[in-house]
């Protein structure tokens, strides 16, 4: 069971219910419904272009934000030497092996990414659920955690095991054939998902009845979002193009809150309102530049390799993603002696009482 925070927030949300709800998953659910109602679901050229352009502003900075948090202080590097030094060396080796054997190794590096990405999304779903559960006072003990994890990871497995169209998909110049799973495997996964989902709802109902108030929906929103991304979302190829964007939005929002919370814990000459604005702009600018350097400039550095540019980009993207999955696993565990828990604060907590704050 989680202990109560030392500095409880004035609010359940980082900013407010609308902003938190939209960025944590509400927006993606609305987009999915809109696409189901008004679009045929096939990927159009415009949708791919829109997803690519939005990647520059959201997806790339979300990767950069992870690295920024790890490498912004030499203390962090000392705390996690294998992640910060050993891992990049290993991934450079993986890139070299993929470029050396583009027909043999590269397809599997990209396959690994296609499996690992949704697993990573599942991990983030659990993390965000735990965060809002803690903020709302919903006790997550062993059984609640088991129900949550089982539900979220079964949606991840169902995402693969449930029958899909027989057409192979093209990713980064590599044709990925369709996987076929035994029928019983998909049914079993689905049954586990239903049972664990029901158990999770049961815990929410018990909590609500005991406290005579409804559990804030934001606690269950990440799990619902994960379900939409994994199962109904698969019916719309166009929606699938935007899922990484929504994942990045979730991530950037929490990472931004963390960054601001940490900066607010430091002595500063600026007032809180100015500090929040300045730090937000500085953080966004750095991460945007970092993202462009990683995902646009880095593949171009390898232009001289005798491999199609799209495959080179795919190899680099896969390696950067894998680094992100590892780094993301450690950065939230960085020892922080300045701020007790920046992720337990609200925008209003960053300003003195009575001072309205706008970003």
């Amino acid at each position: 069971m989680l202990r109560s925070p030392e500095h409880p927030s004035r609010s359940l949300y980082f900013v407010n219910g609308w902003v938190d709800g939209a960025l944590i998953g509400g927006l993606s659910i609305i987009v999915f419904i809109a696409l189901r109602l008004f679009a045929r679901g096939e990927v159009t050229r415009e949708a791919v272009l829109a997803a690519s352009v939005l990647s520059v502003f959201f997806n790339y900075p979300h990767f950069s934000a992870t690295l920024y948090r790890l490498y912004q202080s030499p203390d962090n590097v000392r705390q996690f030497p294998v992640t910060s030094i050993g891992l990049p060396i290993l991934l450079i080796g993986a890139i070299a092996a993929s470029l050396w054997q583009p027909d043999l190794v590269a397809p599997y590096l990209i396959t690994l990414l296609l499996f690992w990405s949704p697993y990573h999304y599942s991990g983030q779903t659990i993390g965000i659920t735990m965060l809002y559960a803690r903020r709302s006072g919903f006790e997550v003990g062993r059984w609640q955690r088991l129900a949550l994890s089982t539900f979220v990871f079964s949606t991840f497995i169902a995402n693969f095991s449930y029958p899909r169209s027989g057409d192979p998909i093209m990713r980064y110049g590599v044709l990925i054939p369709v996987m076929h799973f035994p029928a019983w495997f998909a049914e079993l996964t689905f049954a586990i998902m239903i049972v664990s989902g029901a158990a999770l709802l049961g815990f929410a109902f018990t909590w609500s009845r005991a406290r005579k108030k409804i559990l804030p929906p934001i606690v269950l929103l990440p799990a619902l979002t994960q379900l939409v991304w994994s199962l109904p979302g698969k019916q719309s190829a166009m929606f699938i193009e935007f899922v990484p964007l929504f994942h990045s939005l979730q991530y950037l929002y929490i990472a931004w809150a963390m960054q601001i919370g940490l900066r607010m814990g430091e002595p500063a000459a600026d007032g809180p309102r100015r500090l929040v604005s300045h730090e937000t702009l500085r953080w966004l600018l750095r991460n945007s530049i970092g993202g462009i350097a990683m995902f646009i400039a880095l593949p171009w550095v390898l232009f001289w390799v005798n491999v199609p540019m799209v495959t080179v980009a795919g190899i680099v993207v896969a390696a950067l993603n894998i680094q992100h999955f590892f780094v993301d696993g450690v950065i939230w565990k960085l020892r922080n002696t300045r701020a007790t828990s920046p992720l337990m604060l609200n925008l209003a907590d960053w300003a003195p009482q009575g001072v309205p704050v706008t970003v």
Partner: protein
Amino acid sequence: MRLGAWRAGFALFSISLCCNRALAQQLPRPIEAELTGREKFLAVAIGTMMLCGILSFVMRGRISERTHVAIALFVVLIGGFSLLVLFGGTLYDVPLAAALILLLLVGMFKLMSTFESGLKTERKSTKD
């Protein structure tokens, strides 16, 4: 005395076996054909895993247990990826293998999610 006799007997028996050409196994001949791309990749992967092991050995006493575990997880990752390159084709051909590989990958991702984050016992003692 009795132990000495046993040892001497065992040594004589071993020598008799070693000298018997009929019982000898021939060393496999070096591969004459050029290595395939997959074999070359596996050779590099095995070499990298050995390097990780040597690094862990050389750094003993100078790095924390957590770092040793992280290096060991590198070996698991390299080995897992090599197996994927070796047998990954079955992922798309055999449904049961697809299910099995998916579950093994989930296990590997779960293991990697604990990368350099400290052992359970360490975390418990820190909490207390």
